[in-house]
């Protein structure tokens, strides 16, 4: 049980380097009534812009540090950021006081149509300039550094000139943003494009990594063979746990999120999955800073 707090008190914002879970509508009541023992929670910003859901998050925030994870800012949209959406996120941030704010290396809007997916970018100098401009604008509006997550992708483009880890590193350098390392997304993308997942880790700037994500995915047989699909609908796969262990040895402990937002299981199952991550954080997350010297 989390420590009960006096009414009107709010627990501190900082997200600890331990395991957290994504907050989902079916679990709101359990969070209110039982205050499950979890170090922090992550909420999809776009799910909490409407009145009642926002009020519930505000209440839950009293007992837990909250990370706000957006899926709708479309940082890679050539046409620019949606001002109204950014203003609504700014208000959400003001009220919730999140310990971390994050978005994705992706785009989702063109000609003011919002396509509701994290779509793949050609990784070019033009894209880098656009994403960097939008990250700076978002950080300016939201008043703090944001973390950018590596996407799960199914397509790459011939005119891309910058490999994804180098693109993320350059984005960090230009904007001062941090990174979410989504271990599941690395496994999914590496499987779909024939990348070396461990080598990918080695090309990222260690100091920028502010969070890990873990999730389940599926393998689907298609006419071009097996594709890995980022479904978030089941337990974390064995190869994702293995790469997480590599990441922990390399980077040290970071806040680590279990994402399970389709076919949402009972809270107990979700908490058990978080406990698996917590055990690895405790066992393996000690040597991070020294690993560089080795």
């Amino acid at each position, binding site marked *: 049980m989390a420590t009960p707090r006096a009414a009107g008190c709010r627990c501190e914002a900082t997200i600890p380097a331990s395991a957290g879970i994504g907050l989902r509508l079916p679990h709101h009541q359990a969070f209110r009534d039982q205050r499950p023992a979890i170090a922090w929670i992550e909420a999809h910003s*776009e799910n909490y*812009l*409407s*009145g*009642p*859901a*926002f*009020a519930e998050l505000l209440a839950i925030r009293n007992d837990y540090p909250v990370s706000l994870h957006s*899926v*709708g*800012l*479309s940082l*890679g*949209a*050539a*046409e620019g950021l*949606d001002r*109204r*959406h950014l203003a*609504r996120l700014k208000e959400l941030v003001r009220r919730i006081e999140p310990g971390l704010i994050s978005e994705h290396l992706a*785009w*989702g*809007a*063109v*000609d*003011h*149509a*919002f*396509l*509701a*997916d994290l*779509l*793949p*970018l*050609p990784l*070019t100098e*033009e*894209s880098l300039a*656009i994403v960097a401009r939008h990250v700076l604008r978002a950080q300016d509006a939201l008043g703090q550094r944001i973390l950018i997550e590596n996407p799960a992708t*199914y*397509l*790459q*483009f*011939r*005119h*891309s000139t910058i490999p994804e880890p180098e693109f993320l590193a350059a984005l960090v350098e230009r904007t001062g943003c941090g990174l979410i390392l989504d271990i599941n997304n690395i496994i999914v993308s590496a499987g*779909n*494009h024939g990348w070396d997942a461990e080598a990918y880790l080695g090309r990222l700037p260690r100091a920028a990594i502010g969070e890990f994500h873990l999730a389940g995915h599926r393998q689907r047989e*298609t*006419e*071009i063979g097996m*594709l890995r*699909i980022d479904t978030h609908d089941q337990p974390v796969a064995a190869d994702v746990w293995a790469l997480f262990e590599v990441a922990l040895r390399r980077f040290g402990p970071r806040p680590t999120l279990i994402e399970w937002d389709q076919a949402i299981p009972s809270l107990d199952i979700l908490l058990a999955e978080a406990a698996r991550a917590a055990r690895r954080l405790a066992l393996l997350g000690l040597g991070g800073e020294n690993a560089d010297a080795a």
Partner: protein
Amino acid sequence: MPTLHEFQRRFRAALTAASGDDLADIVQGEGAVARLAVYRNNVLGTLSAALGLNFPATACLVGADFFAAAAARFIVASPPRSADLHEYDEAFPAFLATQPGITARPYIAAVAALEWAVAQALHAPLAPALGAARLAALAPEAQAALRFRAHPSLRLMTTSGPARAIWEAVLQPDEALRARNLAAIDLAAPGETLAVLRVGGTIALHPLAPAAFAFAQALADGETLAEALARVPPQSAAAWLGAFLAQGFFATASLRRPI
């Protein structure tokens, strides 16, 4: 090499329209069609689910297959303008009215229009309701100059046909009762003037007589109480105002002019 904007326009067309464009000339490696299909399924699945959440009774009325097909056509014609999918989409009821196969059943679009008001009410900002006790303390002259601000969840609408009765019947969880209630509905019944609002987390629908509706509308539009009273039969207005306040139509009242 396409600019990013050109690329994104082309990608959108390939995703949402049956343009036949598989992006093969810009995709690296094999399998552009199968890979693009993952994104197409994601977009269609997410947006179709968002429509289903905002229009559950409509989906129930037309059946899952028809709803999915109509949603897929709508998504191509009218994608969301906002990343907040609770706002998807005001134009869906009118779109449904044009769909082949249900043009002979206009009550479906009418129920969808009601569901849109319900969805807006459900997701509106929270605010306490203004009670009658606060007003009773004011002198009559002060009361006359009051302007009310509608509760953020209040929607005043005119329905077409028996949309409210159908909506209430369709969402009845007991199957036998649902069938009985639906069978009892007179599809030729006239539309209603209706107040839709959220009270304590659930939706309340209040049918109003046309004069009471006009009175509520005038108050919600920011007229002073005296101005709104001038529009309606004086003998009824006090009771109507009492009912509006008891039902939580208003969030605040003020003596200042609206900005």
